[in-house]
């Protein structure tokens, strides 16, 4: 057995134990590796007859590391039926880790080892396999091969003319045409569609016949039979309307189908182009107009009402309402102001107001750029049932070719019809078979669903999320920021002494300058009530304890009991009892002392999201067990889980404990959907069958998870689930349709009812039926673009209270 050696670079190794872990993982697939820890360079030795480079890569990943990879996107002229063979052949090439082909966009994504091969070499090698490929640059993706409209139109008209005239003629309604007319028409149609015929023959030569191969064979068989009868070997009326009709109908059908498919991706292109444009940037005290991607992070950009924001950043001056529907699917504009240092994202629109934004990310680093990239990526993943369909399609075309030969032989030898008619049956079988929907049914549905999801405020990173989320039987929620808003808010100010107005004024003034998150909660509470503030004369901040301020000549202490005691202020027993009660319920409590007397108790709590209860019960109704996993105290966790009706609680967990919990449950055979923070819960998100990150509105590219709820609304999880059900339904509908269509029409075309009922499906009508079936499938998938989950209650937005107060 010949062993292969491949030089690779491992990312993330820094200790001998890492090496051990990798070697252990590799030994399971019969490979071994020598690694230089300092550089990560390694030589892997494996048996190419049993192991692929992609298996090596997977083994390294399973050990928790990764190999350095380059990636390459190719546009390939390939029919969906050939996808599997293509992927297999390419992933066996030297230095190639993986190859995924998306029939929806005609693009193949190849990851390779930059240490042993180059994009050029791969391109050559793929061409060497007999495929017509082209490297695609970002900008060129749009420019796809497109036939001028007149070709399919003319083909269709000529085909229709030939078919209709032939039909009228056979009923004796029209005088026979001069002999050369139909042959000439047929020849012209073939010439017009020479590219289709050439592709059909080419894929046949590669031993991976496609729908185009079948159509080509069908037309050529009939054409040959026609030529034979012209030369007098056969008699019977011509055969030339068959190739004219078949190719004419197919040509027009393909054209319609291509147009429809492109429409699905228009949204994506529109999204991508919403990133480009000019911005006004402040440089050296002057306003300069530059391209959006020329802005450097840290520079300040001016945005006027009605303009699109073209950088990610923070509002540093002014205020306004921003339409964030690109990310959230939520049409109501959101209030953004410099006071709150709100984050704005590229691709959103300033509806009214005037703001200056300090850019934090520009060009290809923005969240929007990342969303677009992810959506493109997602279509390369194939759900499990698509892999099955791919395999079936590979055999189906061969089976059809074999069947048509058998049909011809049967009718010519035993059926007692002329050779010409036998050829017609054979041609009909070839033309009627519609393998296309099988290949395109699922990928197109997934690609469109990914795009639809973006509109709903869900970024889907892997196409199989739709399939996996439906399989989940356990859902684990993180608490802070997932089930709760993730931002403390004042729940109650318990008055102990003095008038409310009085105490609140001192409290708000004292906290006016503090930057602590709890102080922010107090300030929000104050501004909601429109309280008037006084600038403190003296202000002292004690980290971790609280503040001391002098307001209107009165000393105000806001902080923990410890701080109050240090100032010699006694906390009454009654107040203490109340405080410990609130603490047990998971709140944070601090005291306000005015002039040396404890005047109030402030209860701060992270608010539960309004939609949380509905989301939890949605999953429980479907028999999915709901679990809460949090780093917070047991008291806080239990109080919220009781409120939301959660089945099981795990408190005081570190992020790695959550990952362990996921792993444990999955070892027990449970399928876990983890919903949590995209940054802190990354380990758990990656271990779960499906990891969904709660988008924080910040850097989407840094968030882990198979899907990210960019809307920042937990309800989007339900939308994703519903969309997934729809995906499954559409995919199954398409597959069922494709199977049923073939199962019924193939026997008819073969002449099963010819003797009994006299029913014959002529090849040109067979081709029309095939195209109609194809278009049905595409249309069915496209109908998903219009899908809307349902109207959400206004104000179900997180942080909505703050926004509405300004409205």
């Amino acid at each position: 057995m010949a062993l292969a050696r491949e030089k690779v670079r491992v990312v993330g190794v820094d200790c001998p134990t890492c090496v051990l872990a990798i070697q252990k993982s590799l030994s399971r697939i019969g490979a071994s590796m020598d690694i230089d820890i300092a550089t990560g360079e390694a030589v892997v030795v494996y048996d190419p007859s049993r192991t692929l480079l992609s298996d090596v890569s997977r083994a390294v990943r399973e050990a928790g590391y990764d190999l350095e990879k380059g990636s390459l996107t190719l546009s390939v002229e390939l029919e969906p039926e050939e996808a599997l063979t293509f992927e297999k052949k390419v992933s066996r090439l030297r230095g190639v880790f993986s190859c995924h082909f998306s029939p929806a966009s005609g693009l193949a994504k190849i990851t390779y080892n930059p240490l042993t091969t180059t994009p050029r070499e791969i391109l050559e090698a793929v061409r060497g396999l007999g495929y017509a490929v082209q490297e695609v640059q970002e900008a060129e993706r749009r420019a796809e091969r497109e036939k001028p409209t007149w070709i399919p139109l003319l083909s269709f008209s000529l085909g229709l003319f030939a078919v209709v005239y032939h039909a009228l003629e056979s009923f004796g309604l029209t005088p026979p045409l001069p002999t050369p007319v139909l042959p000439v028409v047929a020849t012209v149609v073939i010439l017009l569609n020479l590219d289709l015929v050439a592709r059909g023959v080419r894929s046949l030569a590669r031993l991976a016949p496609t729908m185009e191969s079948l159509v080509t064979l069908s037309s050529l068989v009939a054409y040959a039979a026609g030529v034979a009868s012209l030369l007098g070997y056969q008699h019977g009326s011509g055969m030339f309307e068959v190739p004219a009709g078949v190719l004419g109908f197919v040509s027009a059908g393909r054209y319609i189908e291509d147009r429809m498919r492109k429409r699905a991706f228009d949204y994506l292109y529109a999204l991508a182009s919403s990133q480009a444009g000019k911005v006004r940037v402040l440089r050296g005290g002057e306003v300069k107009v530059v391209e959006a991607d020329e802005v450097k992070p840290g520079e300040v950009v001016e945005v006027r009402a009605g303009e699109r924001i073209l950088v990610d950043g923070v509002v540093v001056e002014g205020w306004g309402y921003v339409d964030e529907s690109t990310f959230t699917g939520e049409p109501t504009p959101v209030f953004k102001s410099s006071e709150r240092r709100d984050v704005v994202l590229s691709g959103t629109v300033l509806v009214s107001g005037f703001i200056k934004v300090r850019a934090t990310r520009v060009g290809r680093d923005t969240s929007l750029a990342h969303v677009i990239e992810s959506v493109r990526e997602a279509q390369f993943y194939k759900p499990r049932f698509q892999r099955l369909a791919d395999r079936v399609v590979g055999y189906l075309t061969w089976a059809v070719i074999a069947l048509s030969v058998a049909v011809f032989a049967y009718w010519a030898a035993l059926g007692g019809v002329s050779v010409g008619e036998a050829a017609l049956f054979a041609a009909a079988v070839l033309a009627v078979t519609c393998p296309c929907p099988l290949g395109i049914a699922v990928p197109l549905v997934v690609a469109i669903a990914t795009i639809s999801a973006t509109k709903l405020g869900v970024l889907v990173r892997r196409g199989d999320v739709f399939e996996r989320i439906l399989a989940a039987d356990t859902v684990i929620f993180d608490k802070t920021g997932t089930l709760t808003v993730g931002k403390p808010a004042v729940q109650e100010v318990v008055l102990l002494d003095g008038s409310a107005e009085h105490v609140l004024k001192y409290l708000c003034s004292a906290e006016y300058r503090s930057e602590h998150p709890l102080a922010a909660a107090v300030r929000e509470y104050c501004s909601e009530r429109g309280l008037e503030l006084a600038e403190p004369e003296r202000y002292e901040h004690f980290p971790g304890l609280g503040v001391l301020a002098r307001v209107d000549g009165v000393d105000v202490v806001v902080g923990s009991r410890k701080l109050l005691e240090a100032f010699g202020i006694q906390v009454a027993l009654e107040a203490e009892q109340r405080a410990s009660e609130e603490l047990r319920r998971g709140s944070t409590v601090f005291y306000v002392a005015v002039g040396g007397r404890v005047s109030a108790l402030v209860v701060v709590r992270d608010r539960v999201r309004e939609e949380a209860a509905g989301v939890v019960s949605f999953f429980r109704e479907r028999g999915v067990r709901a679990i809460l996993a949090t780093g917070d105290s047991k008291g806080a966790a239990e109080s919220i889980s009781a409120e939301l009706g959660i089945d099981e609680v795990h408190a005081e967990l570190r992020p790695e404990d959550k990952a362990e919990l996921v792993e444990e449950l999955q070892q027990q055979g449970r399928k876990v959907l983890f919903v949590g923070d995209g940054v802190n819960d990354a380990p758990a998100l990656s271990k779960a069958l499906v990891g969904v990150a709660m988008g924080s509105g910040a850097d989407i590219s840094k968030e882990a998870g198979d899907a990210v709820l960019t809307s920042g609304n937990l309800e989007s999880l339900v939308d994703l689930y519903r969309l997934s059900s729809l995906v499954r339904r559409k995919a199954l509908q398409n597959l069922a349709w494709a199977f049923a269509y073939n199962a019924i029409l193939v026997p008819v075309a073969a002449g099963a009812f010819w003797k009994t009922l006299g029913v014959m499906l002529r090849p040109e009508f067979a081709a029309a039926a095939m195209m109609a079936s194809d278009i049905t499938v595409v249309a069915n998938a496209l109908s998903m673009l219009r899908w809307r989950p349902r109207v959400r209650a206004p104000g179900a937005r997180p942080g909505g209270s703050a926004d509405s107060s300004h409205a």
Partner: protein
Amino acid sequence: MGKAVDPVCGMEVDTERTPYRSVYKGSVYYFCSQHCKKAFEKDPGFYLKHGPAGMPHG
């Protein structure tokens, strides 16, 4: 506010800028460093009684 004397090391401290402060029996004390603050909080009575002892060691 201005200046105050670090009760541990005796250095003059800007009360508005130093982040190191502590409260003891109702009065606020300012420090030049975390080190001094810790030393004070360990035994405030000692420093208030004996006055600044120079930079603490150990």
